């Protein structure tokens, strides 16, 4: 499938690109060429400078040094508009959509030929055309805030495609997709590439990159550490280029934990979503100490609601929530916290962190009420700083200043901070939603190892994830969540990737589940 050959000129050439932020070198002397007719992966760890590099190509940042050459011409993008006009489009990891607008309305931002007058019907018509052309499944009249993360991303992709971009950049595009959707996405990308588009995929998923791309460029610490045709790479080689050391795909030891007992139980629990529609339907689940229960499912099938019910944040409409043999139904989130429960939520910036508050204040979120930081309603900033220092060290996170806003940390470091913070207080139960989403190999293994360690020390762990590889690698039992229902519960050794995959799509024993 590799269409790249000597006769095709590069669509985009980056020459000696350097970009620094105060105290940080994001990119240094990066050279890279991206061709039409190819899918080119940009691979690297968190903070390796992949996104920064692409942001410069998109006119969001301006390089300090170096040239961007598009079709043999040096280009100077002063704002994203210029890049879009030149046919460069980016699908961001964090969606740039207007929540209060419908899908059809969102698709038309930046529409070049917007007529002077147009009706809602015109918008819908054009949206339908765009959606049909690219074969994406989105409901046109839904408001963006009603959509799952996966659906929102599809709208983002459509938005860029509808602007007629020739160079398409995808920042971690499959992070929120199911395996099937991911395959479908890459099929679409291949079609676009065959049409002469230049596709750049920022990723850290080795397997995906190896399976679906033509060429790979690896970035480490802001530098290009290797570019070659995909067929000349394998997992080990890529991983060593990414992290500078050989890392094998890890198998975790999961010793049997003796005499496990119930730590949490949902009895026929139903709950409503923020929009008042049924989110959970008659869910029965039991979590034992010393086990990891994986909840597989496509985003938007009740994952967030399930995690919120288990932490007291969302009230149940019927059924009972038990933690550690105590009926917690209707209790407040702070009562749940007192039961020795840790929670790393789905959307870290919206519910797990206070973005503009300091790193120190965000780190002590779980411990500020207890000695040494808190006592009789008082708060000791110096104790908070020392707790922060030791927690950051455990989490393997380096911070420029503890007083800097936490939003300055990279996504991976934010997640490491949250995980460590929650693991420290999870005495009975640890609930994690997509804990490794958007993280690199080293961070993923780090976090998976920590989850296993918690399990081995007798904590019940609930892992809500879309990554079946991850679920199969570390979970003792697997339950599938579809449309707010638990479709099945298995021991990991009793089920296959295929059967779980089917259930995630709502197919049960070759029959579509009626909801």
């Amino acid at each position, binding site marked *: 499938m590799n269409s790249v050959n000597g006769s095709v000129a590069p669509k985009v050439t980056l020459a000696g690109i350097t970009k620094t932020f*105060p105290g940080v070198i994001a990119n240094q002397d990066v050279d890279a060429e991206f061709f039409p007719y190819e899918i080119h992966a940009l691979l690297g760890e968190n903070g390796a400078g992949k996104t920064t590099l692409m942001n410069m190509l998109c006119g969001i940042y*301006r*390089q*300090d*040094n170096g040239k961007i050459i598009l079709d043999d*011409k040096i*280009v*100077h993008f*002063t704002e994203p508009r*210029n890049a*879009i*006009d*030149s*046919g460069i489009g980016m699908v961001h990891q964090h969606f740039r959509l207007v929540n209060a607008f419908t899908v059809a309305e969102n698709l038309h931002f930046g529409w*070049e*030929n917007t007529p002077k007058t147009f009706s809602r019907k015109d918008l819908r018509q054009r949206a339908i055309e765009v959606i049909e052309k690219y074969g994406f499944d989105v409901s046109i009249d839904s408001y963006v805030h009603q959509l799952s993360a996966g659906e929102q991303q599809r709208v983002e992709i459509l938005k860029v495609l509808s*602007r*007629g*971009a*020739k160079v398409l950049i995808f920042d971690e595009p499959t992070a929120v997709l199911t395996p099937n959707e991911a395959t479908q996405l890459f099929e679409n990308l291949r079609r676009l590439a065959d049409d002469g588009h230049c596709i750049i995929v920022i990723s850290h998923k080795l397997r995906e990159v190896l399976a679906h791309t033509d060429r790979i460029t690896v970035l480490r610490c802001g530098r290009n550490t290797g570019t070659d045709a995909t067929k000349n790479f394998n997992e080990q080689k890529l991983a060593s280029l990414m992290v500078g050391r050989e890392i094998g795909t890890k198998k975790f030891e999961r010793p049997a934990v003796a005499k496990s007992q119930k730590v949490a139980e949902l009895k026929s629990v139903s709950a409503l979503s923020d929009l008042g529609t049924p989110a959970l339907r008659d869910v029965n689940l039991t979590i034992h100490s010393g086990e990891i229960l994986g909840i597989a499912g496509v985003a938007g099938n009740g994952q967030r609601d399930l995690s919120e019910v288990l932490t*007291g*944040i969302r009230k149940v409409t019927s059924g009972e929530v038990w933690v550690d043999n105590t009926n917690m139904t209707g209790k*407040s*989130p*702070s009562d*749940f*916290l007192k039961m020795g429960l840790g*929670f790393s*939520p789905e959307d870290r*910036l*919206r*519910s*797990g*962190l*206070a*973005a*503009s*508050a300091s790193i120190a*204040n*965000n780190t002590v*979120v*779980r411990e*500020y*009420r207890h000695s040494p930081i*808190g006592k009789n*309603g*008082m*708060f*000791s*900033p110096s104790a908070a700083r020392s707790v922060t220092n030791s927690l950051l060290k455990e989490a393997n996170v380096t911070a420029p200043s503890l007083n*800097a806003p936490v939003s*300055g940390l990279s996504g991976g470091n934010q997640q490491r901070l949250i995980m460590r913070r929650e693991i420290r207080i999870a005495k009975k139960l640890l609930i994690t939603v997509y804990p490794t989403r958007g993280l690199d190999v080293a961070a993923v293994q780090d976090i998976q190892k920590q989850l296993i360690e918690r399990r081995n020390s007798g904590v019940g762990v609930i892992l809500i994830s879309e990554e079946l590889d991850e679920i199969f690698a570390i979970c003792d039992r697997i339950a599938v969540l579809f449309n707010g229902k638990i479709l099945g519960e298995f021991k990991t050794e009793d089920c296959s990737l295929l059967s779980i995959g089917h259930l995630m799509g709502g197919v049960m024993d070759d029959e579509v589940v009626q909801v």
Partner: protein
Amino acid sequence: MSKTPQDRTPEDNKVPFWSGLRVKAVPEISAKTLLLSRLIAVLAALVLAALVIKFSGLSPTALGLKAFRSTFGSSFGLEQLGLLLTPILITAIAASIAFKMGLWNIGVEGQLYFGALSASGLGIFMIGPNIPMLVLLAVASMIGGALWALIPALARAYAQVNEIISTLMLNFVAILIVNYLSIGPWRDKSGVGVMAASARIPYVLPDWFEALHVGIFFGLILLVLYGLVVRFTQFGYEVDLIGSNNGIGPYIGVNTAKRIVAVMLISGAIAGLAGMIEITGNIHRLQDGLSNDFGLYGIIVAVLARGQPLGVLIGSVFIAFILNAGLVLQSAGLSVNSVLTLTGLILLLVTCAEMLARYRVTRTAT
């Protein structure tokens, strides 16, 4: 007709001469830069002020010196400064605590008025020894101010009603109620007093100097308390977190709605106390215009100080000085409108500097 990206000619991508120039937002600016930008703003404002005075046919240098000397050069001037400083400082603290939580309490002015009203009602109709009565009046004013903040607080907490609009509108309501009572049911019927005011309130804050009452100490104590609460209590910590992310409340086990109400009530109570201090220390009657827009100046101070206690103090002194200088200039023959223009100009420029300090114009390498 606009072109689609496909049929754009190379000419469309020509580089204009200003393309290298970029206005760039700076994520973090140092305290030094901020201070410098404010100093430049004050200087620029002074130059503009000098021009205005010059064109009014007066000598800018002589008037400037006079304004400065009559504020800082005499104990009378300092006392005047203190009188203006007290309500600005206290309302600035009231606004700051709300801002910390991400609540735009624009209603400190109205809460000040309602605090003054509550204290006056008690002061006019109840008889008792001075000190216990003052304590009672203070408590009443705080309850009054808090009550005036209650409706916007509940609306924001439980119905997501924007508090900027509701608190702002209630300012006018509070001022009109005070107006009605002071020239209506509570007016001075003795015949000796001023026409458009309530009866005299006999309970008086002790004086520190001849004209300056001890209210300034309330302000300073409140400021220290504010600094301590924000920094050294779990309450202050939670307010900082929730102020940064409204959604984090349930995650840390704090009921956000209740906390919004609590913070708004505290803010209102502090503003209300400023009203009582004005009544018992300075004006001694409930009347229209008992606050010289002090609450609004307090809001400006709070915005500029970004919740920093020292910033609140410096900002309050600065604005009190400008107001006092304005009075001096007025007595020297400059029209009221010119004085108000100058005051507004200075504040506008300082606020602009605050914004502009966050951007840089750079020429990038091509």
